[in-house]
């Protein structure tokens, strides 16, 4: 077969041919068995090449979309991971009201009247997986392992507020109503943007990184002031807040504001962005991160538990990146090869220690 025929058939299959070329392609496909066979195989091949990135067809996203439509169509039949407060006792309603008052510490909550259909959607992403969602307003959210995200079911009407415990990447859909992310201690107000928020309640840090546009962070930033402060974070900047790493502190909610040791807004170079957003594409980047932080990330990503034999190891810094590594052992092996660390895996528990040959050298 002539090369030119192959190109023409390929253009037809990949939908790049214009009308004239389509007619020509059809003609040559019908002209001989060889051409027909070639066409059928190229067509099949083009279809099957999707398997190269099968994640391209995202059933999580499709399912969220389905939920959204199914709920919208059939609000009375909201058995789809909805909590219908009507079915709960008054005591439970009060309890959840209190919880809401904490989560949505804003006028949004106060707009609710008792007796109206008060429901919310909670999405809990277990450790070991990342979920992609589309919120009712069309906002795309990737939710990292071990995170919880919640929103009211009238989301989008008078407000667009979500509560986040964990890490999520937001690509906000355009809209007249501001988009608000509430975390335990801070509120992120969006002005039409793409950004990443990392606010796990068991982390000793809070991070917001802006890819496009601008966000405003509100909350107490130091002990000297009783009032909440506002900080603007612009494109390619990251806002970071670190708490004192006191071993006694188990939970961020136990932390006093006096424990804040560092607040900074830092400008990022384009090459640094992946360190913050890589997780959405199964890429983990560590650029001189401490083991204390890395352990948390690995535990969430692979749903394992990591124990450091020597607690001093938590200050150990490591740089490296892992792309599409689905097996924690593979990641550990790479770390082992490039450091003087060794590991032992016992079911879900991984113990990290100095490697023996270095111990022998007296290190």
């Amino acid at each position: 077969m002539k090369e030119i025929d192959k190109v023409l058939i390929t253009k037809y299959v990949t939908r790049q041919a214009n009308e004239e070329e389509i007619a020509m392609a059809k003609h040559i496909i019908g002209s001989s068995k060889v051409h027909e066979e070639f066409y059928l195989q190229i067509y099949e091949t083009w279809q099957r090449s999707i398997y190269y990135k099968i994640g391209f067809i995202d059933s999580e996203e499709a399912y969220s979309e389905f939920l959204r439509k199914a709920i919208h169509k059939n609000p009375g039949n909201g058995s789809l991971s909805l909590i219908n407060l009507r079915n709960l006792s008054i005591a439970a309603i009060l309890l959840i009201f209190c919880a809401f008052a904490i989560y949505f510490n804003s006028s949004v909550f106060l707009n609710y009247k008792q007796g109206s259909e008060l429901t919310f959607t909670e999405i809990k992403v277990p450790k070991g997986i990342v979920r992609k969602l589309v919120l009712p307003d069309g906002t795309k959210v990737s939710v990292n392992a071990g995170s919880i995200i919640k929103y009211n079911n009238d989301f989008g009407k008078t407000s667009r507020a979500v509560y986040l415990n964990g890490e999520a990447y937001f690509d906000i859909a355009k809209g007249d109503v501001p988009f608000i992310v509430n975390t335990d201690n801070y509120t992120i107000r969006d002005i039409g943007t793409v950004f990443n928020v990392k606010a796990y309640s068991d982390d000793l840090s809070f991070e917001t990184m802006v890819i496009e546009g601008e966000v405003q962070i509100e909350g107490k930033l130091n002990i000297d002031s009783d009032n909440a402060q506002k900080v603007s974070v612009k494109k390619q900047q990251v806002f970071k807040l670190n708490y004192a790493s006191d071993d006694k502190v188990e939970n961020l909610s136990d932390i006093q504001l006096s424990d804040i040791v560092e607040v900074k807004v830092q400008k990022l170079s384009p090459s640094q962005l992946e360190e913050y957003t890589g997780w959405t594409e199964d890429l983990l980047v560590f650029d001189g991160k401490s083991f204390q932080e890395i352990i948390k990330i690995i535990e969430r990503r692979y749903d394992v538990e990591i124990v450091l034999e020597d607690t001093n190891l938590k200050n150990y810094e490591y740089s490296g990146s892992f792309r599409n590594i689905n097996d924690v052992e593979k990641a550990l092996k790479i770390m082992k090869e490039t450091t003087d660390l060794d590991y032992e895996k016992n079911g879900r528990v991984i113990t990290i220690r100095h490697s023996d040959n270095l111990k022998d050298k007296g290190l």
Partner: protein
Amino acid sequence: MDDNTSATNIWNVDSKEFEVVFKAHFVKLTLYANKFINDIDISKEIASDSLTSLWEKRGTLSITTSITAYLYKMVQNKCMNHIKHQRIENEYVDYMIRNKLLDEIPGHDTNPYYEKELAEQIRQAIDTLPEKCKLVFEMSRFEYLKNKEIAERLNISQNTVERHITIALEKLRKSLGYTIGIILSLIMQ
């Protein structure tokens, strides 16, 4: 939930069970629709519509075969309707109709081992393409870019883009050659 519900049973699920059905079928149904439509976005919509209508019919639907077979048939019908309404002509669909291949549920699509192996073969084949060729192919396949846009972005001629894509598919076809041979011979039986 029993996937192979027998003839007299009414099919019913709760939302938890349906989530499993949805997630187990969505990708496969999309790929199946894509055979007829050759457009991933529309194929996703058709897969999703079919699953939605299954959900709406829960409790009233009696299925004589299996949920999987039922879904495949529904997707196929929706695809044929789409082709008719949009007046799309597709030589591949014509070929399938001519050779009476439409009534088959593709057995290979429901075999996870086959699928895994296929994915691995495709990954290896694409990863061994020359760098530029691979880049052009990925842009065309996964970023929905027109050949002209790819040419502009990479500052190469449109002819070169077309050649890269032809070479990529040709190589891929060859490395999948025996597999496709098997598929064709299976469905031709």
